[in-house]
């Protein structure tokens, strides 16, 4: 460091000049509760069961693929056979949101695109039970989410971009938006 630089604190002055310049540039801070950043499509947020617009019910067929692939094992499903039609009926579908790690494996393996991690992230509860989503709650989550979205809504994980079609189950290949 030369005598000139030592005496006149040139490097400090340069740094201060930079911060002064930045003072007049537009702020990057997002004033959160008033303004919000746009959420990217496919953000892995609160869980929901898709309400089929035709039947008004969920699409789940009770194949248990999501429950098996879940790394934190937070999905509980119970099914039974309808004695008349011999079809599988999902009697219980519960997600313990506090255990979920939001990896998105469940929506990727679901053959009928029944489950989705919505782009809604502001949810809280005062007790554990409030974040223990049962089937009605999951359908309600979907209703709350879908009114904020443009129709038809299509989640990227329902049919991952670039994954060859033959690796996907047949209903996923011709999946359409809701």
């Amino acid at each position, binding site marked *: 460091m030369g005598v000139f630089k030592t005496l006149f604190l040139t490097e400090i002055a340069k740094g201060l000049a930079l911060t002064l310049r930045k003072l007049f540039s537009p702020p990057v801070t997002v004033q959160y509760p008033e303004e919000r950043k746009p959420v990217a499509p496919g953000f892995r947020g609160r869980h929901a069961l898709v309400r089929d617009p035709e039947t008004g019910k969920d699409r789940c067929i009770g194949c248990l693929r999501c429950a098996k692939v879940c790394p934190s094992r937070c999905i509980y499903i119970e099914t039974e056979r309808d004695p008349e039609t011999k079809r599988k009926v999902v009697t219980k579908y519960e997600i313990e949101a506090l255990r979920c790690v939001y990896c998105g494996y469940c929506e990727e393996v679901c053959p009928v695109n029944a489950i989705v991690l919505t782009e809604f992230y502001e949810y809280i509860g005062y007790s554990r039970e409030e974040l223990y989503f049962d089937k009605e709650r999951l359908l309600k989550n979907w209703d709350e989410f879908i009114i904020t979205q443009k129709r038809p809504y299509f989640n*990227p994980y329902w049919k*991952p971009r670039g994954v060859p079609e033959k*690796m996907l189950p047949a209903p996923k290949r011709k999946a359409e938006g809701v």
Partner: protein
Amino acid sequence: MAPTLEVISKPCGHPEWEEPFVVNMGPQHPSTHGVLRLYLELDGENIVKCDPRIGYLHRGLEKLSENMTYTQAMVLTDRLDYISSAANNVGYCLAVEKLLGLEVPRRARLLRTIVCEMARISSHLLWLATHALDIGAMTVFLYCFRDREWLLDIYEKICGARLTVSYPRIGGVRLDFTTEIIEDLYQFTEEFPSRITDYETLIDVNRIWLKRTKGIAVISAEKAVNLGLTGPSLRGSGVPYDVRKYKPYDAYEEVEFEVPVGKSGDTYDRYRVRMEEMRQANRIIRQCLDKLSETQGEPVVAEGAPDLLMPEKRKKPQAVPHPKKGFLVKGAEVPVVPEGEVYVSIEAPKGELGYYVVSDGSGKPWRVRVRAPSFVHISAIPELIKGHMVADLIAVIGTLDVVLGECDR
């Protein structure tokens, strides 16, 4: 008989008072970057003895992954070094792919390289932010977080998560990039070098920064190798060891980059190495983006890649038609993942991150062992801090860039 504690009976101020002054630093100290506890013996302000105590963030990830399938265990690797989770995922996937003998498509390799280098930039930015804040430069901290936010937003567009990305999967990646992401990344690589210049203007020749970093925690090349340091901490001492050059994985063979090395091996040199690495990472991202257009439309998952829902036990052999009995299932069971053991190491932002995976043929790993750079680096703190003062300890922890999630696992 168990040894009993010696009770210091001499009062303070006694002429024979010779016991060292013992101070506990951490685990809640803000500049230990997590929950590192240091047991210090002081003589005035000089450190006589430093003894790191780890294990406050132990979650048993290695043991947990033994009860999960290979795809499920990948989610756990996000939580190792939570600042650069994409690099951890890639390392684990490479190890399992080596066991399976999978050839990853070129597009997936390029995408993985991009997210790895993004993880490197984001990790180094957080390192610079906290290191500068510890030493006393507040503005750099704010600027670094501003730019890291930009990268996290791109991560959000890529895979839907900002920190625990889970983006790669065994045999490729989970989603392809959209054109919007590629444009965003082009814009980022265009602007980011000027941002690095900004940080350098603030601290590179700042006399306070120089006084706190020059000649602090000097480590010779030989000693650094013997201590097992890797990554920027080793390269700061002048050893040009980089896994990306010595054992190229993913797309590092086809991109051009330099491995920056330091000279004297002090804190300032390690800072210079990391700054230069950010520039090189930026360059790698740029080259990969240019190459992405050549592979437009290719699949991002390998041919024989296992499904996300892996079978937990060995598969039954294929049914063979039999003239009398219809179909016959006969022969040995087919392993989901071939038996064997494999060690793969990658150049994570912190250093050499190794995965040792043992398979017994089922869908669950028999053993996963992680060679974490932070664990090795923490063991080097007592060596580095010799003859320094308490205030320099902050600089030493900062310069080694340790993350306790990775160290304790």
